[in-house]
């Protein structure tokens, strides 16, 4: 795909006097933020599809326990039935891949890389070589994760949260190298790569956004997407290192025989655990959630930014309360660092700390509500143009609302007693991430496609994709709330073992069928993305949607150094002219 994109931009390269680079410098080890953005995007989509297919297989076992998977089951096990070992591996890797290799690289790596320099009017990222390195470190991390399936004991199988002692005692391996070449150790190594990549990327994003702003672009003139990406970058920068430290310690526990997370007196399958003991398994949870709660906002903030841009363009009026929105995002980002222990209410926490964390959790719901409200109020008095990206962006609003609201019973300790670690939790965060973030990202793909390729994606296919997805995705996640209410624990290989699980089993069939329909619904999207590159309707102007931000000042696709003529910013991102029409930031009013 990236190959074609640059055939288009050739002309610009020449006219700009850029010297010809060899193929591998231009498309593979490129330092151009746009090529890197596309590399991130394509890799992330691959991982998203891979992580999704793991879940599609697991959903067969959940809907029809202990029955052989038709057609392809024999590839995995002898009798075609997904074994509990594989189920746990797929579960852990589904979570890891979707979050760390799919959504974050797509939202931050791809959209951030492609759009932030354009939106601030820069010619490239501040550190282009670092940018390239960040992609390749991510790539290696992804490969390490995939290779972990090849180890003798298979991939990591302790959930994406990797709680010790389970993650340490699971398939420990013999000796140092034997211990290293196991699923969980490879998972930890892979995480170290991914964290490093994120750090490089976030340093780059922040410096680019702050230092390379074009003339006239003060902070309060940043588009919401830039604000969202910068906040996200800070979260990645400051929340990820504790997990890196924790990852190193868990790796030491696995291959070095230390006891950071292993308490004294452990007896595993009848044998005393051979390590000194004296560690604390809860410490891992603290360090893990110190990252993983901000990570939730890493997932949602870029989506909020994308939706904001699309709503502003397609309602053809300014975003309501831009400043409130910006401060809410910053507040959200900051607060996300002090709510993490609400994931740990069941670890025997005292009343004082649990009350503290309930309170911070309730406080953090306020900026989320404000963000949603500003978007809803923007719709008032608008003239809504229902393009495909706008459809996805409008669907984001109620889906995100469901995801947010269902966080309330989980954030309050008393109701959490029943709902903790049930399907209710899964429903809650999937509503935030799947029909929330992923819908926003899809909207982003449809919206910026004409900028990236110079051509539109098909509207008809887009609408088919939208309606099928929106129905199917609710079929997948809505029943989870009922199942969670019924008390079905998450990560169960076969819930029909339990009486209350058996009673709720019909819901599993609905969810699985919906998931498979959802998979089919993505085919028109992929086909659309691939074919529109060559055969899509040509975008006649640089700014086909009538958008207001700087990326639409560049030609489509933008040439190697983005802007061939100098650009300048004259006003805040969402303002209108004297004739009551939205006016781009980069156009001087006559």
């Amino acid at each position, binding site marked *: 795909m990236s190959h074609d994109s640059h055939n288009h931009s050739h002309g610009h390269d020449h006219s700009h006097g850029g010297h010809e680079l060899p193929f591998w410098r231009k498309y593979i080890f490129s330092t151009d933020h746009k090529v890197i953005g596309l590399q991130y995007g394509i890799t992330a989509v691959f991982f998203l599809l891979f992580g999704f297919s793991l879940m599609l297989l697991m959903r067969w076992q959940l809907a029809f326990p202990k029955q052989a998977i038709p057609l392809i089951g024999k590839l995995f096990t002898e009798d075609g039935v997904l074994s509990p070992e594989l189920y746990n591996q797929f579960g852990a890797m589904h979570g890891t891949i979707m979050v760390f290799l799919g959504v974050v690289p797509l939202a931050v790596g791809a959209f951030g890389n492609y759009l932030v320099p354009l939106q601030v009017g820069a010619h490239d990222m501040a550190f282009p070589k670092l940018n390239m390195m960040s992609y390749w470190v991510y790539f290696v991390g992804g490969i390490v994760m995939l290779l972990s399936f090849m180890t003798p004991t298979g991939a990591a199988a302790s959930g994406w949260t990797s709680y010790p002692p389970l993650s340490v005692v699971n398939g420990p391996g013999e000796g140092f190298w034997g211990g290293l070449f196991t699923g969980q150790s490879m998972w930890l190594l892979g995480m170290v790569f991914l964290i490093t990549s994120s750090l490089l990327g976030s340093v780059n994003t922040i410096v680019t956004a702050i230092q390379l702003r074009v003339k006239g672009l003060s902070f309060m003139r940043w588009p919401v997407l830039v604000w969202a990406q910068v906040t996200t970058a800070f979260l990645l920068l400051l929340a990820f290192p504790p997990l890196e430290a924790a990852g190193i310690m868990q790796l030491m526990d696995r291959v070095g025989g230390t006891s950071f997370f292993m308490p004294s007196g452990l007896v595993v399958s009848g044998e005393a655990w051979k390590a000194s003991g004296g560690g604390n398994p809860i410490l891992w949870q603290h360090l893990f959630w110190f990252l993983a709660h901000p990570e939730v906002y890493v997932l949602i903030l870029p989506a909020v930014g994308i939706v904001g841009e699309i709503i502003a363009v397609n309602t053809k009026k300014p975003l309501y309360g831009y400043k409130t929105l910006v401060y809410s995002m910053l507040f959200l980002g900051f607060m996300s660092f002090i709510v993490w222990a609400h994931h740990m209410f069941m670890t025997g926490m005292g009343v004082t700390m649990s009350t503290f964390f309930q309170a911070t959790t309730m406080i953090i719901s306020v900026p989320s509500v404000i963000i949603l409200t500003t978007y809803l109020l923007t719709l008032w008095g608008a003239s809504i143009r229902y393009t495909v990206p706008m459809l996805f962006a409008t669907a984001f609003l109620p889906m995100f609302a469901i995801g947010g609201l269902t966080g309330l019973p989980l954030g309050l300790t008393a109701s959490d007693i029943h709902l903790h670690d049930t399907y209710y939790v899964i429903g809650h965060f999937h509503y935030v991430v799947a029909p929330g973030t992923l819908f926003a990202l899809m909207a982003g793909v449809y919206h910026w496609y004409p900028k990236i390729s110079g051509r539109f994606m098909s509207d008809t296919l887009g609408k088919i994709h939208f309606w099928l997805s929106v129905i199917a995705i609710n079929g997948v996640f809505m029943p989870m709330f009922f199942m969670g209410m019924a008390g079905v624990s998450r990560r*169960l290989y076969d819930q029909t073992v339990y009486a209350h699980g058996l009673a709720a089993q019909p819901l599993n069939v609905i969810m699985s069928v919906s998931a498979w329909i959802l998979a089919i619904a993505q085919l028109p999207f992929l086909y659309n993305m691939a074919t529109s590159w060559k055969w899509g309707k040509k975008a006649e102007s640089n700014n086909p949607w009538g958008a207001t931000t700087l990326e639409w000042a560049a030609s489509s696709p933008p040439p190697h150094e983005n802007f061939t003529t100098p650009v300048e910013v004259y006003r805040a991102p969402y303002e209108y002219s004297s004739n009551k029409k939205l006016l781009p930031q980069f156009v001087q009013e006559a």
Partner: protein
Amino acid sequence: MEQPKYGFWLPPNISTHGAEIDNLISTLHWFMAVLFIGWGLYLVYCLFKFRERPGHEADVTGNAHFVLPKYIEIGIIIIEACLLIFFSAPIWARVKQDFPKESEALVVKVTAEQFAWTIHYPGRDGKFGQLKNELIDGTNPTGLDRNDPNGVDDIISPNFLNIPVNKKIIVQLSAKDVIHNFFLPVMRVKQDAIPGMTIPLWFEATQTGKFEIACAQLCGVGHTQMRGFFNVMTQEEYDAWYNEEEKSLLGDAATATEPTGENK
């Protein structure tokens, strides 16, 4: 004892404290429903009313001052604060903190392992025998020292938690290997069992019946299989069961002085 009715919503509640939790859950869901339906109606109205059509222009200046949303937001904050201060925190404190006196309650130890529950009754002396890791084997899952005078009459009940109805139960929860989660759906009881820690919890059942213990925390390949049984009996039934167990452990009362290892 009739089988409990399970379905697509909360399982039946047979605990003294569960009603409070259920009330909070339903209050919250009403609150959420009101908000969601309110937003939803507004959204649908906007999507229809303000659609792009000939002769309709976006009003770029019209929404400079909305006041209603501000009040709604303040309302939401107040409601959330009330839910936290008057419901969630006090319920949590009662459930997790206000323990009954040990003399008025039945105290049992529950130890989780991959993939079973071991329930340990202290016996008539009310004292638990010492647990020693080196004594752990296939027949003695928690390593109870039968030579400890306190441990002679202790009863070990693998996977069966039998309790009398209308009596306060204190569970001392721990785990041998990895983190598990002791979940009694019908009792609204859920607590992580963490190796290296003993975490107490308490509850009281109001109805008899045969229920289940579920593990709610991924604990390995047999996570699903970690199903325990939770039987709430009348006091008479419980006494009968207990005497039976004691008899099979100690033989006749006269043999109580013999080394108890032989009885196992």
